[in-house]
Every structure is written in C-alpha cells, then in structure tokens.
C-alpha cells in the first residue's frame, strides 16, 4: 500500500447540534443546523459534494437515500451525495470517504455530516436496531443486545487483568466531569463511582452509567484542499493521517477478545501517514460507547499497555492537563452517542481543540489530535490524526 501525499486536505469548518431527546425536531432539521453552522464557518462557501454518516434511518426511520434527501433539505439539490454506513462507526467511515473525494482532486470543498434520530421509538425497538451492528444470524438471532455483547468483553477483561468494578467506574466518572463543561453534551452532570455501581444493570456488569445514552444529534465538518483552505478559514486544521480497518463482525472468531485489532491497525496507518507515534498525541476523542470500549480503545491506540488503561484512569491519568487528554467532550458516555453522527462529532471536536475554540474543557496548547470511531464491537474502526 502506498501513501502518496498527493493532495493535502484540511478541516476548515465545523458545526454541531446539542445532543438530546429532540422530540420536536426531525432528521432534516438537525442536519440543517449542523450543516449550516459548518458552512457559515467557511464564510458561506457552498460544498461541492456531501457524504452522510448514518446508521438507523434505514432500519428505524424507513428512509433511505439520505445523501440526496439531506442535500436537498439545505438548498444543495444537485450536488453529488451519498450515505456511508458502518454501524456506530458510520461517521468516521463517512469522513474517510469524504477525505478521498478531496484528496483525489475531484472536489475542493466537501461537506461530511453525521446525523441520527434515536429517540423516536421505545427502548426495545432501538435495542434491536442497534444490535444490527453485531452478527444478525449468530448474535442478534439469540437475543444478544449490543450492550450484552460488550458486557461479555467487560467481564472477560476484568477477570483476565484483575481489574475491579470500582476501577472500571473511574471512566464514566471522568467523562461526566468533562461533559459538565460541554454545552453540546447530553449528560452535563457529575457522577460518583458509587452511582455507577448502583445504577440500573443493563447487561451485567454494564450499568446504565457505563453506557452511552440514547440521543438525537447531527455534526458536520467542511473539508477542503490546500488550494482553497486558507481562503475558507484562518485556522485550517490539517488531516495529517487517516486509517480505517476492520475485524470480524462476530465476537466468536476474534483472534483476541480483549484486543481491538482494527483500532491498532487503523492507528498504525494513521500514525505512519502523519509521521507520528502515540506519545506525540496531545488530545484524543475515543469511542467509549461503554466503559470497556473506552478502556480497550485507549490501549489499542497505544496510550496504555494491555490491561492497564482502566487502572490508569482510576489513578488519575488522561484527565485535563495530562497527555494525552482523553475525551474532553465527555465522550460517547456523557457528550452522547447519536450513533452514525458520533464519528463526525469527534473530528469536529478535535478540530476545535486544535483551533482553540472548543466551548468546553480546552486542551492545553494541543498540536496533534486524534479521533477514533468504532462500528460494531470492534468491526470497523477509523482513526483520524489532525494537526494544527
């Protein structure tokens, strides 16, 4: 594989809605808010193409063809547009596809957006739709919820490495602390270890406070070629590295259960392309759909040895001021996880951290940032390296 740096690509505009139960707002409205913010952020420049990340519209919303639908809804009728789906990793995969539309030289300005409406249906229906991220024939068929499959991983990890339930709980506690400063976050309140342990059990050992909440939201970034980036923004952020990798969708045939192999692979590619190593990263947003997912991500991205991440968090690592600073947004856990939009939220947040205008907990003079987005319980993982 060759990593020709044919054409540099920059994130030049960002936009996002708050995440929550937006009962009064549809998918088009949420998308429009985020997309128009991002377009305003590039001085009104009209995107030449649109890539949309979304998971649930086909299965729950009975709406396909979101590319055309959403382009039309913001007055961009006509432009090339398509949807990318990689379960909860749809946003990151959409960014990967959009990056290549610019890098190829076909377009100079592309809008990448993620949008999700999760709160239209009762919990059991959403639970079934989310389980489509797993193997339909060998996991969902048996009633395995997505939370349930992650619970298998969490127990396995805790027993293998002797990590206590209290140590694991440090993750959500930190996430809520960070989210409390983020005006876009869904859960802006602090919690304690005790609250995590005593919360309702969703799938033992995962409690409600180990789980990302269900919320609606949309995020958007405008990406552009080097030629136009400076015209569109005074603070363009370079996409220095990019990796996408896969693993089995089913849990059973994974080589190692406690290893996000696709994250390692994607990070390796993205770091190599950016010419960096894990220790160079200042700020990162990882995909903590559940406590265990965040912990495994920190390890797979190279910020901790295997089996150590949870304990390090409990010991105070990865907080604001440390290096890397992890999930200053509050993460999926507390910022929220409108599934197909999450990967775009992360890229937008990291871009804002590097620009210095993230409205929540700010990274301390960060130069290199990373966003990691996961589809399924580790099946499709994207890693983006942004550089100031």
């Amino acid at each position, binding site marked *: 594989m060759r990593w020709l740096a044919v054409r540099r690509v920059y994130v030049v505009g960002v936009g996002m809605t708050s995440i929550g139960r937006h009962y009064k707002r549809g998918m088009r409205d949420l998308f429009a808010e985020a997309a128009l913010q991002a377009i305003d952020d590039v001085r009104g420049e009209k995107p030449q193409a649109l890539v949309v990340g979304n998971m649930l519209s086909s299965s729950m919303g009975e709406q396909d063809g979101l590319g055309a639908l959403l382009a039309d809804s913001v007055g961009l009728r006509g432009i090339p547009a398509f949807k990318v789906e990689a379960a909860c990793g749809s946003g990151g995969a959409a960014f990967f596809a959009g990056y290549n539309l610019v890098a190829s030289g076909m377009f100079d300005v592309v809008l990448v957006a993620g949008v999700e409406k999760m709160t239209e249906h009762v919990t059991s229906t959403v639970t079934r739709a989310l389980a489509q991220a797993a193997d339909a024939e060998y996991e969902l068929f*048996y009633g395995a*919820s997505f939370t*349930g499959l992650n619970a*298998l991983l969490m127990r396995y990890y805790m027993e293998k490495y002797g990590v206590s339930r209290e140590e694991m709980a440090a993750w959500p506690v930190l996430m809520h602390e960070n989210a409390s400063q983020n005006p876009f976050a869904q859960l802006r309140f602090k919690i304690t270890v005790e609250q995590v342990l005593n919360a*309702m059990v*969703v799938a033992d050992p995962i409690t409600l406070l180990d789980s990302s909440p269900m919320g609606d939201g949309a995020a958007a970034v405008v990406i552009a070629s080097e030629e136009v980036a400076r015209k569109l923004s005074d603070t363009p952020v370079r996409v220095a590295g990019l990796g996408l990798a896969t693993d089995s969708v089913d*849990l*059973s*045939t994974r080589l190692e259960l406690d290893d996000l192999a696709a994250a390692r692979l994607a990070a390796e590619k993205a770091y190599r392309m950016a010419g960096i190593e894990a220790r160079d990263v200042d700020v990162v947003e990882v995909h903590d759909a559940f406590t265990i997912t965040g912990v495994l991500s920190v390890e797979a991205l190279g910020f901790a040895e295997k089996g150590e991440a949870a304990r390090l968090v409990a010991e105070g690592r990865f907080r604001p001021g440390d290096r890397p600073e992890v999930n200053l947004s509050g993460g999926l856990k507390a910022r929220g996880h409108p599934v197909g939009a999450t990967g775009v939220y992360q890229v937008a947040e990291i871009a804002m951290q590097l620009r210095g205008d993230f409205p929540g907990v700010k990274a301390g003079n960060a130069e290199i940032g990373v966003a990691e987005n996961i589809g399924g319980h580790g099946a499709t993982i994207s890693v983006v390296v942004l550089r100031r």
Partner: protein
Amino acid sequence: MKLSIPRFWREKAAHYRLIGTRCKSCGRISYPPKPLCPYCGSRETEEAELPRRGRVLSYTVIYTVPDGFRKYAPLVLGLIELENGVRVVAPLTDVMPEEVRTGMGVEAVLRRVQEDGEHGVIYYGVKFRPTMEY
C-alpha cells in the same frame, strides 16, 4: 419481526448441530461458518461439527432485551469456549442467572430461541446448559 424462514432454514445445520467451517490450509475452525478462512484467507474449507461441551469464558445477564425477546428476559448470554478452543456466543439455559460462573462446564442443547408472533413461526437454536460436573 423481520425473521425470514428461508434464511434460518439455510443456517439450521449450523445452529442445530454446531456446524462450523474448518480450513484445510491452516486447520483453524470458524464459527459462525464462513465461505473462506478468516485467518489465512484460504478458499479450501470444509464443514466441521463442533464438540458440544465447553466452559464459560464470559457471561452476562441482559435485562434490556431487543424487541421479540421480552419473554426470555433476563436473558443469560454466554461466551463459550468449546473443548477444541472454538468460541460460541449463545444463551445459557437451565440455570439461574446468579448461579452462572466463569469456567463453569456447559453442554449444547437445542432450544426455542424466538418466535415470530405475526406468523406463528418458532425458531430453534443452540443454548448451553451446565454439565453435571459443575
């Protein structure tokens, strides 16, 4: 529900008799069965019946179940390591949630897995129950 009869008919050997695929090149077995070997990429694979006994590698008790599984809640789901090292995700049965332990010996049995309320179809599949010696 969106269960499809042709689909589960196709898969029933795998579900009923724990049929995976063995790679003729590297020897590894996949369950779920796959057209090619996921480990070495070889196209030469053959059906392989898995051992029906194993032990619990991990487990969970699912309280918030997907649509269609309410009557099975709380659902005890196991990650089973069979005697030959192959792993299977399947429900545990004939056991109380609080009795399940990692390392517990289990064996495969055929059980009702879900029903299609609208069309009255019942789907069977593999579940694991504790073996005598546990």
